[in-house]
């Protein structure tokens, strides 16, 4: 399990990451969401130990993460990094060796990964000869080499076609199921929604919302809608709610306190038929826009 506590990084006067805390539990995928410049990459670099935090700490399984812990993490940097002029298999083997694998094991694992990502025929090709989408797949394979204990992936899906996204997400889910925590950043909310167990939303260096999809939605759900068989104007006088809008027999309103639902419903039934009464569940992107102030 990875925990981040009060992580802060300043570059001169600019605070890039401001008191960021969140947890990536074992066997879960956490999506790291935020606009460009929100501080995702800086946070990930601090997690990987590439950048020293100004304040705060990174915990691995309950104790401060050591260099040795971090060397077990699979990492995919934001701007893709591999040797353009080297055959893809050779460089995966090299990275595998640097992470402690014997050459023969590294070779068979790299071949396996490339085959699984649909590049089995092209292992001897130089990276630069591959299309951008395929280069991306090699990059993913690089982060999965040598049995990582955690995955830190910075925008792993950008530039991937839908088929590659599916292949990639299947691989990630398989890794998560094998018990490793996965943290990935993305600005594609739908993907994050589909793949992640939990989200951390970052804005201007701060965590503005965090939790599972249900938690975030529950947190963002403050409005209800009621449809009656007669005019709904009386709701304006009802205590305990703030009405946003009444339109004929339909109204939307915010509950001022928990528990007023029952009184409200009883009153409505007394007055006639209740055709609809439901919370207005926001979409993730609505929540995202709300918490990031966009």
């Amino acid at each position, binding site marked *: 399990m990875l925990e981040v506590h009060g992580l802060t990084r300043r570059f001169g006067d600019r605070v890039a990451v401001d008191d960021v805390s969140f947890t990536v*539990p*074992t*066997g*879960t995928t956490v999506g790291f969401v935020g606009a460009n410049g929100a501080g995702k990459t800086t946070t990930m*670099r601090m997690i*990987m*130990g*590439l*950048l*020293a935090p100004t304040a705060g700490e990174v915990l691995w*399984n309950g104790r401060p993460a050591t*260099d*040795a812990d*971090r*060397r*077990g*993490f699979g*990492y*995919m*940097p*934001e*701007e*893709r*990094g*591999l*040797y*353009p002029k*080297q055959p893809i298999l050779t*460089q995966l083997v*090299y*990275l595998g*060796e*640097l*992470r*402690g*694998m014997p050459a023969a094991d590294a070779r068979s694992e790299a071949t396996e990964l490339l085959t699984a990502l649909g590049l089995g025929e092209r292992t001897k090709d130089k990276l630069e000869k591959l299309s951008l989408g395929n280069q991306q797949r090699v990059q993913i394979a*690089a*982060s999965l080499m*040598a*049995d*990582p*204990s955690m995955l830190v992936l910075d925008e792993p899906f950008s530039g991937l076609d839908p088929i590659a996204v599916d292949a990639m997400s299947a691989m990630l889910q398989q890794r998560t*199921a*094998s*018990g*490793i925590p996965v943290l990935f950043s993305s600005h594609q909310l739908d993907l994050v*929604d*589909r793949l*992640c*167990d*939990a989200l951390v939303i970052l804005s201007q260096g701060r965590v503005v919302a965090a939790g*599972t*999809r*249900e938690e975030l939605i529950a947190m963002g759900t403050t409005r209800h809608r009621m449809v009656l068989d007669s005019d709904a104007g009386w709701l304006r006088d009802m205590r305990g709610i703030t009405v946003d809008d009444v339109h004929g027999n339909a109204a939307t309103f915010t509950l001022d306190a928990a528990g007023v639902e029952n009184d409200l419903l009883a009153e409505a039934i007394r007055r006639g038929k209740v055709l609809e009464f439901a919370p207005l569940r926001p979409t993730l992107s609505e929540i995202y826009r709300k918490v990031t102030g966009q």
Partner: protein
Amino acid sequence: MSTPQQHTEHQRRWSQPKNAWGIVMRREIFAKLTDKAFLSGTILTLALIIGATALGIFAGNRGTRATIAVTTDQAAAVVRTTDQMQKATSDKNSFTVEQVASEEAARKAVSEGDADAWLRQQDGAWTLVFNKKSTPEVTSAISQAVQTQLMGELGAKAGMKPEQLTRAGTVQTELVDGGTDKALLTMIATFAFSILFFMSSLTFGMQIAGSVVEEKSSRIVEIISAAIPVRQLLAGKVIGNTLMALGQMALFAIAGLVGLSFTPYKDMLPAVGAAVVWFLVYFIAGFLALACVWAVAGALASRQEDLQSTTTPLTMILTLVYMAGFFASGTLAKVLSFVPVISSVLMPARLVAGDASWWELVVGLLLNLAFAVVTVLIGERIYRRALLQTQGVISYRQALKLTD
């Protein structure tokens, strides 16, 4: 969306390699060995060395060979003296006596090509009679012998023993010839050391800088430095390239020495051989002293195009060393031969010249190594900090202020 389940902690099968620098080193060497430009450059240089040596062998093989027709015993004695004296310079030289009965026969022998010249004694004067064209080497060799012999005769009259005379004659020749040879050889060796040091340092230094910026600009350095300590990455690069540079240099040196053994200078082989070994040792120290600075030059750049500006201080230093090899002499050369990096050229050169004692060699080497330690320590720090700075070129001044 699935709810998080309880998972057991994942245990990695692999742990951090102990010899990460060795893996990096292997990649550096392999990358160089499969680089066509590097291979063709090495082969071309080797061909140049072999070619130059072959020329030397050709020149050395020529020697001066002449058959001299004589009619008198006195003339025969002069030719024999000539032969002895010239053989002392090179065993490729030889002067053979062709005893003929008469002056007629002598003239005939020369005109028909049986003899190269006729040494004629007439009225107490010597004349060399050639066929169509005189040969200056033969004339000067015979003249020398005549003078030596004359001096001998005068000496004998003055009561000097033949041994004394021989010594008197030969000592003078050896001083003149030997001295000239050595100066020439020292000059050639110094130039060779200068050129080799400049060429090899530039090639492999640029290789280090290029490899650093390649990793930096492609961002693979983020993956590598997350996987292994940056120090190991730097060590692998520096050691790999130093080994390659040393290997290439040793190859050139062996080619040169083997070539030398076929030239008239082969007697100098032990002295030159020792100097070459020292040169290789000094080369390692001199190269190491700059290796981490080359890595820094790479780390300060963001793209290959930036290298030209970030490596300028290094190319300037190398040019200075190169110039020192060609132009420094006397006391200046002596002082500079203790200055790190410059010593890599000047100290072995002084050894060839024979004016460097063993302690000077050791002191020069230690100074060089001490300097290398300093540049490695500072270089490693800047390298580590500049690696992740990807916005354009960083100046050396800014680099010193960088933090982790």
